[in-house]
């Protein structure tokens, strides 16, 4: 029950911002659509994927940005932090609501909103121009495959929001790039050692800066049969699907629990 009260509080207090976000999204979908209908004909591929591409972009980029702002207006807000700290709910409950809001509620509401918007816009298109894009099908399996991926990946941004008091989105992206670089280097080294028998040389071309660094393996197709490769692939999947999100949530919880009045910015 407490979670529902917290969720209602979050929704009511953020509804102005979310309304502006929804209106912006609606206009972004509407304007290119109308211009295309007036001045040209949409291509076949555009007709099929117009709203799909918006959903995917706003699910990931929009969702990550919204997640990154999760604590800016309460836990880290100079004027708002007092209310957040004194609100009679445990740190776990306060964090859980942020997870529910940004990881579950957001993608579902986004899917419903884009579906409803596409129905309205394409209804108008059909009436005015006699042609239309395909409306978004909310039960398309693609979206329900993407949403779990979003839930896992956005947990990293939630952790960033809990840890970085300012500019958390930018800092999280930079940290992920750094982490990617480190993991990439480790993978190259591990690959060099583990797949030594398949290693066929390494070259760095003169135009290194244009991404011409390569490691050549004698028979990449043979990877399919290597047990070690399968093991790494499985480990990677388990780490992503089972451990990544819980890890980020647990670390975020510790951060939320530790926050004090002098952390406000």
């Amino acid at each position, binding site marked *: 029950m407490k979670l529902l009260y917290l969720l209602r509080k979050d929704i009511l207090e953020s509804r102005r911002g979310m309304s502006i976000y929804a209106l912006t999204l609606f206009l972004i979908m509407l304007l290119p659509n109308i211009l295309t209908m007036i001045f040209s004909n949409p291509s076949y591929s555009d007709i099929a994927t117009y709203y799909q591409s918006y959903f995917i972009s706003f699910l990931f980029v929009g969702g990550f940005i919204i997640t990154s702002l999760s604590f800016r207006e309460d836990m880290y807000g100079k004027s708002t932090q007092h209310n957040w700290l004194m609100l009679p709910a*445990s*740190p776990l409950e306060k964090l859980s609501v942020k997870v529910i809001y940004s990881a579950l509620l957001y993608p579902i509401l986004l899917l419903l909103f884009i579906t409803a918007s596409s129905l309205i816009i394409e209804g108008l298109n059909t009436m005015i121009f006699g042609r239309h894009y395909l409306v978004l099908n909310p039960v398309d399996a693609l979206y329900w495959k993407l949403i779990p991926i979003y839930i896992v990946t956005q947990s990293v941004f939630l952790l960033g929001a809990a840890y970085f008091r300012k500019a958390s989105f930018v800092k999280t992206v930079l940290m992920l790039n750094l982490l990617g670089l480190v993991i990439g280097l480790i993978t190259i080294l591990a690959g060099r050692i583990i797949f030594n028998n398949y290693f066929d040389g390494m070259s760095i071309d003169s135009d290194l800066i244009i991404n011409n660094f390569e490691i050549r393996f004698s028979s990449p197709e043979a990877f399919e049969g290597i047990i070690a490769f399968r093991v790494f692939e499985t480990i990677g999947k388990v780490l992503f699907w089972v451990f990544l999100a819980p890890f980020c949530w647990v670390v975020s919880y510790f951060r939320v629990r530790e926050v004090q009045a002098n952390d406000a910015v």
Partner: protein
Amino acid sequence: MIKLTDVSFNYSKTKLFNELTIDIPGGNIYGLLGMNGAGKTTLLKIISGQLYVKSGEADVLGHNPQKRETGLLEQIFYLPEEFYLPNIELKEYLLINVPFYPNFDKAAFDRYTKSFGLDFSKKLSEFSYGQKKKFLLSFGLASNTSLLILDEPTNGLDIPSKSQFRRTLASAMTDDRTFIISTHQVRDMENLIDPIIILNEGKVVFNNSLNEVTSALTLSVTPAEPKDTECVFKEKVPGGWSALKIRETEDSETNVDLETLFNAVIANPVSLSKIINQGV
């Protein structure tokens, strides 16, 4: 009710409290006084769990405030000097906040807001600073929390509202509630706060009831400057000298002006506390 034992706290390199100990039993309206930077707000934030002590122990209503447990938070309402109200209607504010305070009394809230003359049809953002403060005061009083913390509550209130504030606060006080009011406006709080806690240089230098003070000291205003040997503290006031003297058995009890008491404690904290506590 509230017990801090050997509490130390510092902001980066600046040590604010060093082994501060204070015991605050329930059922009173405490006045927390101190100079600027004495640590009044910090102390209130430690009590409410917003700041963590570096060492020592804090016990508030049987909880460790640092854990910020729901059971403790729903028993504390803290109105800070600078506060934030979301841009929503008053009714919505109640809708989203009342469920968190199990003892909230809507009838009492209506009474308090009416006595402060607040208009329910307005959005919270349309209220002036003083009106917002009255609204939060009404909410805090109606929440019926065991501990009500008010930091400079009369700042921003107009003159009629200040007396209304005193009346409303006194009417909301019960034996099982404790109010802690941190203030510089001691004149606004006269006849309301008792006991008085005074913080100075990171220590509690005074924690006594006004009854204890008036039993031990008398206040007199004389046109001529009293001799140092005749009083424990003196200060020039319009029309003469205000002097605190040790009360003799034949002396009748006098009211003690809070401003004079505060100045006396700050000027000589050790001897004044000694005199008062010997008299108890």
